[in-house]
């Protein structure tokens, strides 16, 4: 049988197996090589909720999805073209994500009686044999025994041999999609540098998988995906949590201030703590606190001392930090709170994504407690917005909430990373020391932007007290005066609102600046909306897309921009939160599109929902 070479514009591959099968590594290595070949791409890892769910069961399945192409790729793909399954549980958990006619590569060893039982297939049923997969192209590969055979000459233990089998699959996929194995070999040699026998075994199995594709003659097609038309430059691959870390480190360098990071482990934010703790040489101190409240409180203490105080968490932890955030509002100290959102309420679905903490960020503290809210729109954009969060906090002496989510945190994309010189300096205004001044120091004196100066301990002559009790304007003394309280509430709000003068105006991402329909998004929905709107535009629709990075305050021109459209649609991974803010602020009858399934929007479903809303309009006007 001869193998046809075919060219594909885009491909989505999903690697799925047991948590112990190394699917995340397999996916990442395929991604790295794909990036090196110049494809545009997006990835989405999906981890099991339990750390060690029983092997072979559906809850134990771990997956990694990669969407790559020669065109612009903005999402990890709605459905996949290829599904790699290392066992029957992986098939069961993921089959619904495979497109009809798609390819299944099944490790037959994972479909033995024991595995079928663990995956809870009915007694005697085997999906590989009962015809239920007839509408797909199924390749059954005996990965385990071929791996064993390849390593028969080595002294590796049974377990060590078994650990190599993901490399067989990777090699096979490299062959199928015409990618070189060399970058992976280099990686393996580096990773197992101290254990050459393990490195050699992995390389051996990787090559065996590749050659199997070449010689087995069971695959009818082999695919090529050409380079994408990316902007020229140097790229790296990056996840949202990684680029958040880099944004914070960049802020220390561009402000000249050390950074103190107080955090408590929580999914999916912990990688930020892990990442930052490796960068102590940049003037970063990381503190794993005893709880969420101590985490934010320690960051406030550091901010009082003149450092960039940052804390991170996810929804449940943010709820615990509420009172302390209010203190930072009152103290008018810079504080950055990173919320890597996940599905709630309560513990919710920790490993699943959601955008449902926007109203919490906006209103989730006691009293009138305005904070700035920013939101990155893609994994690489996490860098920009983490940097922005620090800049705004420091320059405006205000707590800033940064809303990322599990999808951005773990997803990755190619990043044309900046150079240090491309980044703006962050300017802070410390109160200077004073000697023998008779004038009392007024800690709550403000500049034209309502910003007080940063008066840190260790500065001669400005000893003063701050606290959570209402402040008298100017002196900062405790005050229960009714008029003063109202004034201070308004001042704190005005200070937050004034930040709008120091953020970019809202741009239209694609489409006309006025017209029939505007799709307005925020945060991690960017890729799906951009792709969906792009496709609708190619179909001839008058539709535009704008995406908010700044939510509190909104960009100055947002109202004008919204009023330039007949209809405004707001898709969100929640039950309708930004849409409420928009309606409330501008009295515009914006329409929501909501998905609350712990997963990002698929492009097709988003297009369908948009068309649905627009058809509703027609019925209204027709009737």
């Amino acid at each position, binding site marked *: 049988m001869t193998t046809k070479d075919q060219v594909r514009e885009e491909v989505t591959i999903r690697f799925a197996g047991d948590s112990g099968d190394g699917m995340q590594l397999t996916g990442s290595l395929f991604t790295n090589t794909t990036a090196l070949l110049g494809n545009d791409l997006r990835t989405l890892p999906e981890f099991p909720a339990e750390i060690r769910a029983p092997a072979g069961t559906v809850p134990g399945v771990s997956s990694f999805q990669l969407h790559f192409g020669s065109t612009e790729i903005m999402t990890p793909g709605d459905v996949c073209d290829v599904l790699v399954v290392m066992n029957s549980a992986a098939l069961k958990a993921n089959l619904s994500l495979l497109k009809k006619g798609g390819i299944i590569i099944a490790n037959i060893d994972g479909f033995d009686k024991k595995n079928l039982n663990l995956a809870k297939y009915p007694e005697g049923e085997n999906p590989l044999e009962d015809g239920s997969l007839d509408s797909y192209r199924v390749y059954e590969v005996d990965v385990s025994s071929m791996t064993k055979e390849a390593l028969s000459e080595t002294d590796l233990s049974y377990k060590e041999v078994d650990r190599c089998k993901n490399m067989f699959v990777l090699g096979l996929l490299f062959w199928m999609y015409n990618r070189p194995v060399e970058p992976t070999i280099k990686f393996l040699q580096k990773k197992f540098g101290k254990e050459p026998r393990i490195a050699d075994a992995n390389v051996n199995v990787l090559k065996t998988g590749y050659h199997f594709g070449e010689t087995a003659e069971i695959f009818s097609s082999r695919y090529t995906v050409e380079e994408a038309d*990316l902007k*020229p430059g*140097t*790229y*790296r*691959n*990056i996840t949202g949590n990684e680029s958040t870390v*880099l944004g914070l*480190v960049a802020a220390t360098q561009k402000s*000249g*201030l*050390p950074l*103190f990071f*107080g955090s408590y482990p929580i999914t999916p934010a912990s990688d930020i703590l892990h990442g930052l703790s490796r960068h*102590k*040489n*940049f003037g970063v*101190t990381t*503190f794993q*606190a*005893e709880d969420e*409240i*101590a*985490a934010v*409180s*320690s*960051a*406030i*203490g*550091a*901010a*009082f*001392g*003149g*450092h960039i*105080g940052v804390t991170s968490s996810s929804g449940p932890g943010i709820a615990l930090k509420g*009172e*302390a955030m209010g*203190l930072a509002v009152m*103290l008018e100290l810079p504080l950055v709170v990173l919320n890597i959102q996940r599905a709630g309420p309560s513990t919710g679905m920790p490993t699943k994504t959601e955008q449902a903490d926007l109203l919490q960020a906006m209103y989730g503290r006691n009293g009138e407690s305005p904070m700035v809210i920013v939101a990155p729109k893609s994994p690489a954009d996490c860098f920009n917005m983490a940097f922005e969060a620090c800049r705004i906090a420091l320059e405006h002496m205000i707590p800033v909430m940064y809303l990322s989510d599990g999808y951005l945190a773990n997803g990755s994309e190619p990043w044309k*990373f*900046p*150079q*240090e010189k491309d980044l703006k300096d962050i*300017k*802070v*205004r*410390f109160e*200077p*020391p004073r000697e023998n001044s008779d004038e009392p120091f007024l800690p709550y004196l403000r500049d034209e932007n309502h910003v007080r100066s940063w008066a*840190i*301990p*260790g*500065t*001669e002559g400005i*000893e003063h*007290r*701050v*606290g*959570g009790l209402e402040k008298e304007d100017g002196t900062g003394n405790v005050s229960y005066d009714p008029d003063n309280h109202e004034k201070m509430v308004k001042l704190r709000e005005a200070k937050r609102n004034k930040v709008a003068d120091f953020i970019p105006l809202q741009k239209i991402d694609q489409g006309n600046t006025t017209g029939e329909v505007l799709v307005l998004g925020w945060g991690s929905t960017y890729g799906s909306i951009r792709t969906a709107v792009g496709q609708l535009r190619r179909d001839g629709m008058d539709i535009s897309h704008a995406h908010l990075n700044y939510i509190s305050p909104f960009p100055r021109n947002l109202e004008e921009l919204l009023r330039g459209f007949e209809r405004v649609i707001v898709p969100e991974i929640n039950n309708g939160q930004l849409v409420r803010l928009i309606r409330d602020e501008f009295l515009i009858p914006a329409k929501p599109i909501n998905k609350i399934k712990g997963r990002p929007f698929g492009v097709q479903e988003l297009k369908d929902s948009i068309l649905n809303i627009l058809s509703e309009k027609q019925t209204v006007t027709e009737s």
Partner: protein
Amino acid sequence: MTTKTNTDTLKNGNANGSNGIPKYSSKDFSSDQDVRWCPGCGDYTILKQVQNVMPDIGVLKKDIVFISGIGCAARFPYYMDTFGMHSIHGRAPAIATGLKVSRPELSVWIITGDGDSLSIGANHFVQLLRRNVDVNLLLFNNQIYGLTKGQYSPTAPEGTVSKSTPFGSIDHPFNPLQLSMGADGTFIARAMDRDPKHLQKMLLRASEHKGTSMLEILQNCIVFNDGAFELFTDKKSRPRETIYVEHGEPLIFGSENEKGLRLDGLTPEVVELGSEYSKDDLWVHDEKDKTKADLLTRFFEHPHNSEHLKFPRPFGVLYDVDRPTYDEGVTIQNAEALKRNKPDLNALLQGPETWEVS
């Protein structure tokens, strides 16, 4: 504008070190704010003694910070002419940790109460002690919630009748010193508002100790719990019911110094000095001895429960040992990281693997 001086402050700390400290008087530490505790509250004298010892701790005023939580005592920082923060309930240890770790050259004082530190903030209290952050914690213990007008507190003895326990409290109280021992605290001491001289001494000792200094100060709340510590403060009962410990000295008490504490193995007992026992038979206080400190901190019978205590309540420094501080550990680790690896933002942004698109 970043002023040079502040950046220097951030980097180098107090340029003068301990030299060049002006001759302060206690008045230099008194702010312009009216003190607002109830007349007769024990907090007044504690404030006064703190202001009295501040000139002697060898720190510039600009480098002193008082941080409090919530409660009557938490108003304290407003009255000190130093840097200060009146924060939120129970969290002062966490705020102080962040401040001290980022600015180790500062002298950081935590002002807290029994509700603040042993109820809502108990977690932070024990974590502070185990980490041994180099701060001083003054625990104003009045066995009652004063600010919220009279509910029993986590140090109130069983049976305390309060607004929230009209039939007597059922909760077993914390022994703050034992809790501190359990958290592996490195400096554990007790003083009382009614003995200002001794309190001053204890404050100085607390300030000298490197690591978390936990000083419990028995404080009379004249409004909601008056006389809670009368047995220890009343002239008549005090010699019998208290013992002042001094490092290297035998444990003697009583109005005529006629009683002593003796160790029978690991069992403490009160003995009468005279025919059977002499000074030489007594337990000699050793601040460095954890076992002995553990026994001493257990003397915690409650005056409410019995007229006369089996063991006197100990005052003084019960335990004082050296253990590396958390803030010092952070400083060392950060410095080592810097030595190993010069910060290069461009290299960091570039990451381990890149590719070119042309």
